[in-house]
C-alpha cells in the first residue's frame, strides 16, 4: 500500500457549527507532517473522517488510495492514536493490545514485542486504570504500531506528557518517518513539533491555511535578519539604527537587526567601537514562523 493520506474537499456541519469547510491536503511518506491549528480548527474531525469514524457531508478521505472502511485488517494499513484515555480501566495494558492484535489476526508475540519497544513491559500486566498519562501515551503508541502500518495518525500525542515523554515521542516519530512511513501528527502547540515535523499543514476554521515545508517556512520567517549579541545593546542599537537598520530587542543581550547584511553589521559596530560577542544569521523558531504565517488570520491568532 502506498503510504499516503489524501483529504479532499471535506465539509461537515454539526448543527449550526461548520467543523470542516473544504479541508484538502495530502500527506506524503518519509516525513512527519504536522497538522496544526488552534483548538476547533477541524484537526480532530478531519482525523476522525480519515479513519472512517465520522462521515463527511461532502468530500472524501483516502488512506493509501482507499477509504478506511474498506480496509481489511485496517491496523496493518493505518495506525492511529486518538485518545490515550480510551481504555477499559479493569483490563491490563497487555490485554488491551492483545484484543487489538487478535482483531487483526496477530498474536501475543507481536504484543510483547511492542511492549518492549515502547518500554511498557514492566507495567504490562497491571490494570490500565492505574497508568499515568505517560504510560497511557506509550500504550497508545504501541497500539498504533501493532500492525506495523505504513501510515500513522496521532491526534495531540504530546498532551499531558512529561518532558521526557515528549522527547521520546519526537524521536520515535522521526525514526518512523525515516523508515518511509507517512506520519501525521496534530498539535495545537507549535513548539511541540519543533525539530520533528518536516512539513506543516496549518488548519484554521475547517480549511487549510498553509501547506508548507518547515525549512521553507522558517527561512521565510527569518527574512535574512541578523542576531547581534552584545553587552552594550543600547549603544549597538543606536549605532545600527543610525545606519538605517531596523532593530528589535531580543532575548538576553541580543538584538535582531533587519536591513543590512551581517558583514555590514560587523563593520558598523566595529567603526562605532561597540563591543559584541556574536553576530549571526537569525533563525526564527517554528512557533514564531507559525505566528508570522497566521498573524493576518483572525481565526488562528490566540
Amino acid at each position, binding site marked *: 500500500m502506498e503510504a499516503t493520506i489524501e483529504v479532499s474537499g471535506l465539509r461537515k456541519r454539526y448543527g449550526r457549527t461548520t467543523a470542516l469547510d473544504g479541508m484538502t491536503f495530502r500527506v506524503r511518506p518519509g516525513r512527519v507532517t504536522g497538522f496544526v491549528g488552534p483548538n476547533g480548527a477541524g484537526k480532530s474531525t478531519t482525523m476522525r473522517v480519515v479513519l472512517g469514524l465520522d462521515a463527511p457531508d461532502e468530500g472524501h478521505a483516502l488512506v493509501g488510495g482507499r477509504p478506511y472502511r474498506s480496509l481489511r485488517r*485496517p491496523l496493518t494499513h493505518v495506525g492511529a492514536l486518538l485518545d490515550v484515555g480510551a481504555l477499559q480501566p479493569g483490563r491490563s495494558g497487555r490485554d488491551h493490545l492483545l484484543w487489538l492484535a487478535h482483531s487483526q489476526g496477530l498474536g501475543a508475540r507481536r504484543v510483547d514485542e511492542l511492549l518492549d519497544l515502547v518500554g511498557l513491559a514492566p507495567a504490562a500486566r497491571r490494570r490500565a486504570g492505574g497508568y499515568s498519562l505517560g504510560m497511557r501515551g506509550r500504550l497508545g503508541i504501541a497500539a498504533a504500531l501493532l500492525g506495523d502500518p505504513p501510515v500513522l495518525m496521532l491526534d495531540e500525542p504530546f498532551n499531558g506528557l512529561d518532558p521526557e515523554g515528549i522527547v521520546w515521542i519526537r524521536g520515535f516519530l522521526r525514526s518512523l518517518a525515516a523508515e518511509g512511513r507517512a506520519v501525521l501528527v496534530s498539535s495545537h502547540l507549535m513548539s511541540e513539533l519543533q525539530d520533528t515535523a518536516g512539513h506543516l499543514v496549518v488548519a484554521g476554521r475547517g480549511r487549510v491555511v498553509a501547506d508548507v515545508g518547515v525549512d521553507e517556512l522558517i527561512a521565510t520567517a527569518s527574512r535574512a535578519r541578523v542576531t547581534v549579541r552584545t553587552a552594550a545593546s543600547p549603544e549597538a542599537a543606536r549605532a545600527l539604527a543610525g545606519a538605517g537598520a531596523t532593530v528589535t530587542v531580543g532575548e538576553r543581550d541580543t538584538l535582531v537587526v533587519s536591513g543590512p547584511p551581517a558583514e555590514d553589521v560587523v563593520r558598523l559596530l566595529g567603526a562605532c567601537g561597540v563591543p559584541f560577542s556574536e553576530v549571526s544569521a537569525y533563525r526564527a523558531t517554528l512557533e514564531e514562523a507559525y505566528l508570522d504565517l497566521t498573524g493576518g488570520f483572525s481565526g488562528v491568532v490566540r
Partner: protein
Amino acid sequence: MTARLLRAEWTKLRTVRGWMAGLAASSLLVLGLGLLFAAGGHSSCSQGPVEVPCPTPPLSRDGRAVEDRFFFVSRSLDGDGGITARVTAMNGQIRLPDATPGVRNVVSGVVPWAKAGIMVKESTKQGAAYAAVMVTGAHGVRMQHDFTEDVAGSAGGAPRWLRLTRTGETITGEESPDGRRWTTVGTARLTGLAHRVRIGLFAASPGDVRVVRNPLGGSASASRFTEVTATMDEVTVRGAGTGGTWSRDDIGVELGPDGNPHHPGAFVGNGGTFALTGTGDIAPDTSNGRIEHALTGVLIALVVVVAVMVSFATAEYRRGLIRTTLLAGPRRGRMAVAKAVVAGAATFAFALPATAVTPPLARGILRGNGVFTLPVGTLTEVRVVVGVAALLAVAAVLAVALGLLFRRGAAAAVAAITALVVPYVLATASILPDEVSRWLLRLTPAAGFAVQQSIPEYAHVIGHYAPAAGYFPLPPWAGFAVLCAYAVVALGLAAYRLERRDA
C-alpha cells in the same frame, strides 16, 4: 474477518475480571439456588399417628408419572376378543366449598371429565397399559389410551353403545347410538401388550377444579372430591378365557388409618344391569414437582447476566473505547454481531453445566426429603437444560444489543430487565388475571421462559393451566423464538444505528 472479530471480542470479555466473575456467579446462582430450593423442600406423610414414607405416583410404561385411580370390573381375556356395553346413565356427586365451615357441602352432578365405559388393560396394576372407549360428563364420547392419548368421538352423552375390539396389539373403539350402526372412534396400538389382559367396565371421576380470583387480581385453584355412578347394560364379552366371573378392582384406592378404603368405589350387578361408582382419574400426573422448579435460580442469574453483558457493551462508550474498536473493525454491523455472539456463547458455556447438573442433584435431594419430581423423557430434560442455558444466552444477546442501542448502562439494564424479568414475574406471581398473564408471555421477551416447561397441558385433563402454575401460553420453542426475535430485532437496530451515526 468475522473470526478475527469474534476472537477479539472474546479476548475483551475474558480480560475483564469483573465480567468473568459475573458469569461464574450466574452459573453458581443457578446451582446454589437450585440446591437451596431442593434442600428446603420436604414432605411427610402419616398413616394415622405413624409417619410413613410418602407414596410415589405410579409410572406408566414410558416412565411417566400417572394418576391411575378408577373402579374396574373386569374379566380375563387371552388373545383377540372384545367387549360391548351400553352406558345408560351417569349420575354423581360433587363436593363444593363448605358453605358452613366444617359442614360438607355436597351437590349431585357429574363433572365434565367424569368417565364411564369399557377398557382393555394389561393388568390391574396402576400404570399398566390400557385402551378405553367411554362416555364423559360433558365431552362426549372419547377413546383414550396410555394416559396421554385422547381422541374425540361424537358429542353425545349417555345413553350410548360402546364396543372395544382387541386384535393383537391393536385396540379399536367404536360407538353406536342404537347398537346397530357403529362408527369407529379411534384405534390404539399398545406395543408389547401381553397375551392375557383384563377386559371390562370402568368408572372414574376426577376432582372438581375450581379457579377463584384472588383479591390482587390473580387466581388460585382448588380441587374437590367427586364421584360418578354409571349404569351400564347389554354387556357382552367375546374371546378366549373370558368365561370366568367378574372381578372388582378399586384401582389405586387409598386406605385410611383404620385400614378401610378412602372414598371406595362400588359395583352393583342386578341381572344384566351394572352400576359402577368410581372416583379419581386415568391421566398423566401434573400435580407433583417438576424439574424446572430446580432451575428457579435462573431468574436471578438472568439479572446478573444482563448486568454483565450490558456493561460489556456500554464499556465501549464510557471512555470512547468504541473508536478503538471501530478502527480495528470498521464494518460496524459485524462488530455488533460479533460482540453479541461472543456474549451469547460465553453465557451459554457458563450456564450449561449449571443447568445440566442442577436438576438431577435437586431431584436426588428432594427424593431424600420425600418429595417426588415428575419424571420426563430424556429429550424433554435435554430441551429444558439446553433451553434454559440458551434462554440466558439469548438474554445476553439482548442485553448487548440494548447496551449498544442505549449506550448507557443504567438505561440499557433497566430496559432489559423490564423486557425480560418484569413480565415473567408479573405473569407467574399470581397477581394478574390469567389471560393478562398469558398475553404477557406471548408478546414480551419473557415468552422465552416457556422453554423450561417440562409438563405439557393435556386437553383431556382438567387443571388450572395458568402461567402461575407453570403453564405457558406458547409451546417451548415458539416462546423461545419470540425471545430470539426480540434479540435479533434489537441487534439489528443497534447495528443500523452504529452504521448510521458518527462514532
